[in-house]
């Protein structure tokens, strides 16, 4: 028995014959903000749509507040709201769009007041927007109206798929402010997907990375996309441009698969004498250093072989690594996995 709000177990989702999302165990806790990042086609939107009870997974168990929700339960669907990536607005005015969710729930007490509050929460004044046609809205305003239509439902869990993609900075700020306010006011659990890792990490309690249909819950992971090349007796991730920093990998079972190294398993050293014999070693340049959100450790960005890798070091080691320096980076082959 866990205190998780939403639990996923042995999830598999197929599109035709291809597995697009696979996850053994994934929990979301009440009132937390979970960020999901990853490249296009990694499974972020599929995960959001499954969590939002929009998409039925091919296999697996979903539990919301301890209750099974597949086939989708009406109660769970009333408590979970999703702002999908390309949320569309209905061919009605702004006010009717915001009120739609309440209308179908037949919860129409103080409707106009609630619509006004919801619109105001996303920075759109009721007096100037309520009667406006959705055709007269800018992209950012339309996105905020779509969010207001979800916030009015006071959902227990709110899923946002790329909420700030293709919107202006002002709208992006208002969207973030509104969802954080929802969490503060009603304890709404937030799940936000975005390509912008820095932005996600700045607002999330934890960030997970989706890649090739798998979820990586480590704080940071390094993805070495294939193909790999064999040079001599060793396999490397070789840069396209001139680069003397080719990253060695123990083997390449399939040239086109990608190798994953958790950032916490990528170590740095100034000399090679203390590096274990079986380690995979390369010499990248330190591109930058930043402090983690909990301020307990530092992220060291390494540029090498046309990709930017990240290593995690303790705050106490801060002075020993400087941007621009070339260092030894190494990892245990056992920590590498292919996807």
């Amino acid at each position, binding site marked *: 028995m866990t205190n998780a709000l939403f639990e996923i177990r042995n999830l598999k989702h197929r599109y035709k014959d291809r597995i697009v999302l696979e996850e053994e165990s994934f929990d979301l806790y009440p009132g937390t903000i979970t960020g999901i990042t990853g490249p296009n086609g990694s499974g972020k939107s599929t995960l959001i749509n499954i969590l939002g009870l929009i998409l039925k997974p091919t296999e697996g168990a979903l539990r919301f507040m301890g209750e099974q929700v597949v086939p989708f339960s009406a109660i769970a669907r009333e408590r979970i*709201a999703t702002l999908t990536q390309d949320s569309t607005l209905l061919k009605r005015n702004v006010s009717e769009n915001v009120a739609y969710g309440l209308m*179908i729930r037949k919860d129409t007490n103080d409707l106009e007041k609630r619509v006004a509050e919801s619109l105001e929460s996303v920075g759109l004044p009721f007096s100037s927007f309520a009667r406006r046609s959705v055709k007269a809205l800018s992209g950012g305003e339309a996105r905020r109206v779509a969010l207001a239509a979800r916030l009015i*439902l006071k959902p227990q869990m709110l899923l946002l798929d790329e909420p700030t993609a293709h919107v202006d900075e002002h709208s992006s700020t208002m969207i973030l402010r509104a969802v954080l306010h929802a969490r503060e006011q009603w304890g709404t659990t937030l799940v936000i997907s975005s390509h912008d890792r820095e932005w996600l990490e700045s607002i999330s309690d934890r960030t997970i990375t989706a890649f090739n249909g798998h979820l990586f819950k480590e704080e940071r992971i390094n993805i070495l996309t294939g193909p790999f090349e064999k040079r001599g007796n060793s396999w490397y991730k070789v840069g396209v441009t001139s680069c003397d920093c080719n990253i060695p990998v123990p083997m390449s079972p399939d040239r086109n698969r990608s190798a994953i190294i958790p950032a916490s398993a990528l170590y740095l050293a100034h000399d090679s004498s203390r590096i274990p014999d079986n380690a995979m070693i390369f010499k990248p340049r330190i591109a930058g250093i930043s402090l983690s959100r909990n301020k307990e450790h530092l992220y060291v960005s390494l540029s090498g072989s046309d990709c930017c890798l990240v290593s995690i070091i303790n705050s106490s080691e801060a002075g020993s690594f400087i941007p621009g320096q070339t260092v030894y980076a190494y990892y245990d082959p056992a920590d590498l996995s292919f996807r």
Partner: protein
Amino acid sequence: MDFIIDGIIKALHLLVSFDSETYSAVQATIYVSGMSMIVSLALGIPAGFALGYFSFPGKRALRLVVDTLMALPTVFIGLVVYAMISSRGPLGSLGLLFTLPGIAIGQAILAFPVVAALSASAVESMDAQLRPTLMSFGVSRTRLFLTSLREVRFGLLVAALNAYGRVTTEVGISMMVGGNIKWHTRTITTAIALETGKGMFDVGIALGLILLLIAFAVNVSMSFLRKYE
């Protein structure tokens, strides 16, 4: 040329004097077209929605059949319905031959593919994100269907107006199934055909003007709806 001008003057006189024979045909036309539209919309919109919304094996072939049926000749429908409801036909006992409901059945068959095909096109042109968006509100299947219909309401109205235009202007079904019986099953189009054959241009022109008025009203409605979509 004189007989045409004379015909137009007499036609206007028939219209303003509310000539009972002329208006009997107008009444019959409104009745049968109204009945046929109710039936064809009730069956055609759900069928068109299903055809445009869902994916199933044989969908493309079915769509092709429905599109082809839009061009069904009215005399062919008239022939089939006549065969079905004549005294020797399987529905002969219902006594529908030479009645307005009989014509309405034929016109519903004419209108159904028009409503279904154009409704399917309207649903197909619906925003692909509408379904996930509505699902994200936790809507039921019924609500999903009703809201989706409302979203394509202009497309459905255009389908209905097209079908209405087709049924009010057809001659074949009304003539064959209705028999063009004066005061009973004579519609605007069959009356025009008959009166013109007899050389009575005034009645023909009067009814023709009403038909033109209906066609004009349908087209104005369509352009109005397109403007406000």
